[in-house]
């Protein structure tokens, strides 16, 4: 019976009175809420204009989504980045031997200490900017025609950023889309690996003329990823197996399969002593977006970023206008209502995971066909896991994911330049990325630090903590 499912009213809005905890130490009986609804019958004392409606049981994912989309979302993201940069600066100072020693003389020569620290931090972040967006120095020299600096050299940082961003956007979407259906896809990594395997295999096994080559291998990669994701979705729909556990395990399976696969006869590159597959045919590689001549100048940016933007547009369209997107969102918000309206919850969950797998698979394809050319054990890097961070930073909205992916891509590109400074390591970039996401995922912390006005959702947060 429905009244055995306590409706959770997290808002604690004025109409609904106090909020019940979720089976914690101080539960307010759900009947308390039902009572006030039904007190509104014909002979109720006052005629309530607003009868609060019963709420379906909220899942943790749902509560998280609400929190993610609370007020001030944009401000919080921005401040999270600032906070992460500040913490990163402190770490830089602590990590750099000479600067750290200078702090011993803080009271003796505070000015010198602070300026040494400032120099270190500003040059590090300056390098990050130069490595990811534009280096003013090379721009000036190109403008004035000094040292034969070409436009390709000026565009190099941007090209790097776009190269790193493309796969992250794919895997970010692969994490964001299932989130809208109430699923946590931790399996982007495994799906990306399967996508890379599928794409690369078609890429070196069949030679096709012109663009068909890369189109075929892209489709193959998407298909491999989709099937790999679909397994998870079907298990979830059929048996209720939790997708988090299943996807984590399938990440291992994919990784170990890749390690085995690249050593097999016919796959392994006979000309190489190390564990690497044959390279894909040159026609199967993604075209470079800055043209063939730019490639010689090191501009790696390729079709991957274009495909990633198309994918984001596609996901955005699906969620807004697609019939399947409607079902997906309905299932994500309220499975009971979706089922009552005649939707197939199981099918929707399975297809969502399949679609997510396809997106992650395209991320894997982009790694191989955009740049790497051949499969190696770490060909997809950490894009699957970083995709989860990108999805969270992008607040699981398609265009948010694009911006977050670009930011992460820029940080990766800039990080390479940053480590040119002695005493600054690339790992610092990873730390800062993690901090940003941590601050975004804990908006209460950021709001408390910057004393932002409380959003209505903060009540929900407290309710969750109590429950």
């Amino acid at each position, binding site marked *: *019976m*429905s009244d*055995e499912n*306590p*409706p959770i009213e997290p808002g604690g809005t*004025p*109409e*609904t*009175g106090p909020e019940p905890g979720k*089976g914690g*130490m*101080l*539960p*307010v*009986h*759900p*009947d*308390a*809420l*039902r*009572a*006030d*609804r*039904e*007190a*509104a*019958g*014909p*002979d*109720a*004392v*006052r*005629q*309530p*204009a*607003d*009868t*609060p*409606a*019963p*709420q*379906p*049981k909220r899942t943790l994912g749902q509560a998280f989504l609400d929190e993610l989309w609370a007020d001030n979302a944009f401000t919080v993201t921005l401040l999270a980045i600032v906070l992460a940069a500040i913490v990163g600066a402190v770490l830089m100072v602590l990590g750099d031997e000479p600067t750290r020693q200078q702090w011993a003389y803080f009271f003796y020569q505070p000015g010198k200490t602070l300026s040494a620290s400032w120099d270190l931090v500003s040059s590090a972040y300056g390098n990050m900017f130069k490595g990811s967006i534009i280096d003013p120095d090379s721009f000036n020299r190109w403008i004035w025609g000094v040292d034969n600096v070409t436009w390709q050299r000026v565009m190099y940082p941007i090209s790097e950023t776009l190269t790193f961003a493309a796969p992250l956007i794919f895997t970010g979407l692969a994490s964001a889309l299932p989130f809208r259906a109430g699923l946590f896809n931790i399996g982007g990594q495994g799906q990306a690996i399967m996508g890379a395997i599928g794409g690369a295999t078609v890429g070196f096994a069949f030679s096709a003329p012109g663009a068909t080559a890369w189109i075929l291998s892209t489709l193959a990669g998407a298909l491999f990823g989709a099937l790999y994701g679909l397994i998870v979705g079907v298990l979830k729909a059929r048996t209720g197996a939790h997708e988090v556990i299943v996807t984590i395990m399938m990440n291992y399976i994919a990784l170990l399969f890749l390690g085995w696969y690249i050593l097999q006869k016919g796959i392994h590159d006979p000309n190489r002593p190390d564990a690497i597959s044959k390279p894909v045919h040159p026609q199967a590689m993604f075209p470079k977006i800055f043209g063939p001549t730019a490639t010689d100048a090191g501009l790696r940016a390729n079709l991957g970023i274009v495909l990633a933007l198309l994918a984001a547009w596609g996901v955005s369209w699906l969620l*807004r*206008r*697609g*019939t399947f997107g*409607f079902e997906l*969102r*309905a299932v994500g*918000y*309220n499975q009971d*209502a*979706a*089922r*009552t*309206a*005649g*939707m*197939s919850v199981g099918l929707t969950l399975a297809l969502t995971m399949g679609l997510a797998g396809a997106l992650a698979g395209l991320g894997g394809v982009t790694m191989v066909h955009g740049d790497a050319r051949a499969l190696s054990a770490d060909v997809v890097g950490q894009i699957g896991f970083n995709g989860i961070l990108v999805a969270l930073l992008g607040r699981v909205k398609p265009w948010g994911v694009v911006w977050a992916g670009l930011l992460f891509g820029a940080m990766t590109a800039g990080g390479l330049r940053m480590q040119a400074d002695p005493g600054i390591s690339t790992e610092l970039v990873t730390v800062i990325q993690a901090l940003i996401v941590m601050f975004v995922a804990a908006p209460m912390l950021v709001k408390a630090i910057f004393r932002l006005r409380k959003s209505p959702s903060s009540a929900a947060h407290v309710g969750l903590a109590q429950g």
Partner: protein
Amino acid sequence: MTARVHKNLAHAPAMRSAGTRRSPLRLELRGITKRFGDLVANDQISLTVEPGEIHALLGENGAGKSTLMNVLYGLLQPDEGEILVDGRPIKIKGPGDAIAAGIGMVHQHFMLVPVFTVTDNVMLGAEQIRGPGGFLDHAKARKLVVDVSHQYGLPVDPDAVVEDLPIGVQQRVEIVKALTRDVDLLILDEPTAVLTPQETDELLDVMRGLKAAGKSIVFITHKLREVKAVADRITVIRRGRTVGTAAPDAPESELADLMVGRSVLLRVEKDEAVPGRPVLSIADLVVADDRGLQAVGGISLEVRAGEVLGVAGVQGNGQTELVEAVMGLRPIAAGSIKLLDDDVTAWGTRKILDAGVGYIPEDRGVDGLVREFSVAENLVLDTYAKSPNGTRFALNRSKIESGAAEKISEYDIRTRSPLHAVGTLSGGNQQKVIVARELSRKLQLLVAAQPTRGVDVGSIEFIHKRIVAERDTGSGVLLVSSELDEVLSLADRVAVMYRGRVLAIVSPDTPRDEIGLLMAGITGKQPLPADTPGEVREAAGDTETPDAEADGEETAS
């Protein structure tokens, strides 16, 4: 709460020989009023629980029983009124205060840690501590559990893990847990809702035992049989108000009447029904509830075109399961369902909806609406993939929105715009969204479950008119409601359900007394219980062998 309980225990270190600290307790609630915003959940409720009595609080779901008890247990603060223990007003700010005052509560949804043992669960929040290091004293806690369960005849294995125990035993653990807190008054909130009939009988025995041991019990329920079996006094609550106090020998029909209410008679103007051919034919339907217990036990019903078949009955007698089975939302154990000429027994919900069945679900917030979706989206929640709203692939947003605007004005849905989240609307308007959605397509059959629950009077009238209008266009209507007035004013025929069976199908002009009796499980041909006064027996039309069970299931039509 934890801290408070600790404090309480620290002050009574020698306690836990359970039940010796205080004499039986007299509890009085005076004029308790609890409001949630504009709504009055409890309106000037007064009630007295005498020492050592079982006081039943009878009322339908949502009548305000649980709110009242949550006030008493300190989970909610009353807006007005006071609580007196042994004549002395006390302030209960939380469960800790309640326990200190000798009041314990067993919640409908158990507050047990499934992976802990019985002893650990009983100890939780009132840990037995040994030595200066503050180690848990399992031995002492275990002994306490054993002692209490012996003293009150509540057999539990102190070392069993709670999740392995049947529900009935888990409930016993909850009672033991309350008793170890040395309380003299126990609140049992719908304790039988989760129990099988056998477990229920055991619980009733336990309650009698506790009463014999000098404990007072407040017993919340909506089941008449149980009340009559154990209660010393009965207070009936309806819509937040006390509507009467009765002795347990009061006739069940009177209690049912008090519970369901007869105050307002909302008459709906309608013409005589012109029934056509059967739209829905249910034959020998058997359906299980969520616990796997039989909730619908062999029902046969027929809804004809152009008539409203009302299903009356106290809530929880299988109506929910019946409706869900018809809609393809619940597996059917046996029997068949026919829609016009099609056997739809094995059909899925989408197919049933597409065949021209409209469905107003009982719990609109859970099953009827997606709160976060806009009004427009909710208005196409089951027709989004059909022309003109969309195709299999894409939605036609502009058509959906213009269609929504039309329905909003036609059904007078008060919303700022079609794009506002439906969760921001009032209950009545949310319900209108569902009604608008379901009635705006061509229907053969409308299945309406509690269509006006928690809806303001204006909306009730509107929804009733719409349902009658749908009937007049030639659709069949299956109306399920626990509001007898609603059933009587809308239905052309009334089927009375009791414990998963249809006891009788009567005309809506049948005297309310008779229907009240049927709702309590007493059919005309069936003898009444021994303690039922004669005059009501006459109303029921029969007066023989007063000692038989008032079950009446065998005489189902």
